[in-house]
């Protein structure tokens, strides 16, 4: 059955205009497909793609898994080559293993880097850290990307592809399977249809999946705070990450000239273990957020109080006083975390085909630079 005349139909409908959604739209548009992007917020890149640490992972974070590390290094090279215009690499990225409570010690980290073939030069711990805090300190090769610069370019490229259409402020009133295609009623837009729908809504992924009645991902949710700070002194051209456990990271935030500060313990404010993200702050969100549809945490009227005191105290306990930093602002975003049973180290991006012909695919990835994992489902 052909879609109704009043219904606009597309080769692909992409839900969510984060990096994953826009990457998919651009890629398909360049293949001359007619693509519709539906974005809930009033602009692209307003959630996780912007509000995150902006670290282009090289593998250092996985000192207990060689497979992930080696795979990360590959993604790193490709991303840095293709998106070099939004990458800031002119700073010293320092990784340190904490003396207490770390799951990895200096010798193990050194060995791991050697085996994974990634740069790791010993530095005197007393250069950056207070006496006895870290048993190993290493200069590494890792960069940061600038989401705003990336967004500008993505939008410019997309504007050159006339077959891609983006709707901001999109409210999907209903979504249903009708024979060979999916039909979506979008407020103010009417009904749109396609035989290929890509769900790239990250933290909202289960919300859409549940509306379709498909099997949700096994995830938990963390409401995360990332702090922006000025680091005018010696920290200016240095990024510091203390691992492997309940520690912190303070590093340049893209090309903005300011730093991001996060901590394993204090960045997550609230956790939800439900299939759909359920938080007590939703009640105070003035109707902008619910377990059925997440609002934008960063613009929420019931944003949590900042954990700056906690994070800054932790960082100052470790770092020498000359590596000083000051508070600028806080940003909040929701992080879905796959439960252990769903994790396959060699495939950091989880792609689920809920339905084939018509096709409904959900993509969930914990990293920016693994966006290429989408290629395999887009070329069909």
């Amino acid at each position, binding site marked *: 059955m052909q879609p109704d005349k009043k219904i606009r139909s597309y080769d692909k409908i992409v839900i969510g205009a984060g990096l994953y959604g826009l990457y998919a739209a651009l890629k398909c548009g360049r293949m001359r497909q007619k693509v519709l992007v539906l974005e809930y917020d009033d602009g692209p890149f307003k959630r996780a793609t912007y509000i995150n640490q902006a670290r282009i992972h090289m593998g250092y974070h996985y000192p207990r898994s060689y497979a992930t590390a080696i795979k990360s290094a590959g993604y790193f090279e490709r991303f840095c080559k293709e998106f070099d215009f939004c990458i800031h690499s002119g700073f010293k990225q320092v990784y340190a293993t904490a003396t207490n409570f770390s799951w990895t010690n200096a010798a193990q980290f050194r060995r791991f880097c050697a085996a994974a073939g990634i740069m790791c030069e010993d530095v005197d711990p007393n250069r950056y850290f207070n006496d006895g805090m870290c048993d190993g300190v290493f200069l590494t090769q890792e960069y940061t990307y600038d989401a705003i610069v990336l967004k500008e370019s993505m939008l410019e490229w997309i504007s050159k592809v006339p077959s891609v259409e983006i709707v901001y402020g999109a409210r999907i009133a209903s979504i249903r399977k009708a024979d060979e295609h999916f039909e979506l009623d979008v407020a103010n837009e009417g009904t749109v249809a396609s035989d290929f729908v890509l769900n790239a809504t990250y933290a909202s992924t289960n919300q859409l999946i549940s509306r379709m009645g498909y099997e949700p991902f096994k995830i938990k949710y963390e409401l995360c705070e990332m702090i922006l700070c000025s680091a005018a002194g010696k920290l200016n051209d240095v990024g510091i990450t203390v691992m492997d*456990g309940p520690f912190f990271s303070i590093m340049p935030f893209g090309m903005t000239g300011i730093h991001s500060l996060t901590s394993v313990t204090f960045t*997550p404010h609230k956790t939800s273990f439900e299939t759909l993200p359920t938080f007590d702050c939703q009640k105070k969100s003035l109707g902008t957020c619910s377990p059925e549809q997440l609002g934008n945490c960063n613009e929420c009227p019931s944003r949590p109080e900042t954990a700056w005191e*906690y994070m800054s105290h932790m960082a100052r306990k470790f770092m020498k006083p000359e590596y000083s930093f000051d508070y600028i602002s806080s940003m909040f975003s929701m992080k879905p975390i796959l439960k252990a049973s769903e994790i396959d180290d060699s495939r950091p991006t989880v792609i689920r085909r809920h339905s084939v012909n018509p096709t409904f695919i959900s993509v969930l990835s914990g990293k920016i630079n693994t966006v290429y994992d989408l290629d395999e489902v887009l070329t069909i």
Partner: protein
Amino acid sequence: MIRDREKNFVSAIVYVRNNQEQIKGFLAKLMGVLSENFEKYEIICVDDQSQDGSVRAIKDMSNDFDSTVVSIISMGYYQGRELSMNAGVDLSIGDFVFEFDSVIMDYDPSLIMQVYRHSLKEGFDIVSAAPKRVNRRSARIFYSFFNKFAKYHMVLRPETFRILSRRSINRVHSLMVSIPYRKAVYARCGLRVDTIQYMPTIARHKVRDRAVASYKSGLAMDTIVLFTDIPGWFVNIMIFGSLFAIVFFACYMLYVVYGAGQGIRLWMVASLIVSIALCGLFTCTAIIIKYLSLIEGLVFKRQKYVIESIEKIAK
């Protein structure tokens, strides 16, 4: 009434070992005091392998932890109060750190702030709260014995909690890699230290815990070996005693052989000498071995303590 709250960030480390009955009441009182007086603080409960529902009880309270962060460190196996509290202090991030060695609050909660203010206003890096009356006989014996023979004229007494400045924590850690007995190390860290005594409001009753009892007697032995002069004296006495015995018997032998002109029963005398000398030697060796094992513990053990997990309790 809105009061000016302290800007200093404080951490409170709480030692938990089979305290399911007391822990909720204790945490409620502690949070009451801290949230009234400090803008920001954290609580770290160190669970030393409780066999009862202590951890459950802490997690049950998570709804009350609205504006504060509570973490639980679970020790990998029973390691005793000293190592557990060291782990807590290592995790803490506060400008000032409270160490609560026990969750039995036999004092008025206002004493907590009294201790803090005493440290801040009078410039003491470490201030302890100590009960005036000590009920446990074993404790009384230990402390009077220890104080009599302690090196550096240290005077210790049972304490229930104390506050440490970040400066004193850094100092202590630059002095020693691992801290076998906090009180003794704090007492000789060279910074200003003081004690506030209080009259206990309730009597502590004794709980039977065999692991704790054997840990405590072991700790007492270690403390005496490390921080008193007794082993040194003992070694000296044994060495001089054996020497004296040898000389005495040598003289006696000469007298028997030459002076009295009697038949020589040399093997008897010799074996006597040898056994006495050996006895002294063995005792000294035993003490040396004890020293060595302590040194081994202090220097060579990579891991000061073994933890199983660290968990932040969120709502």
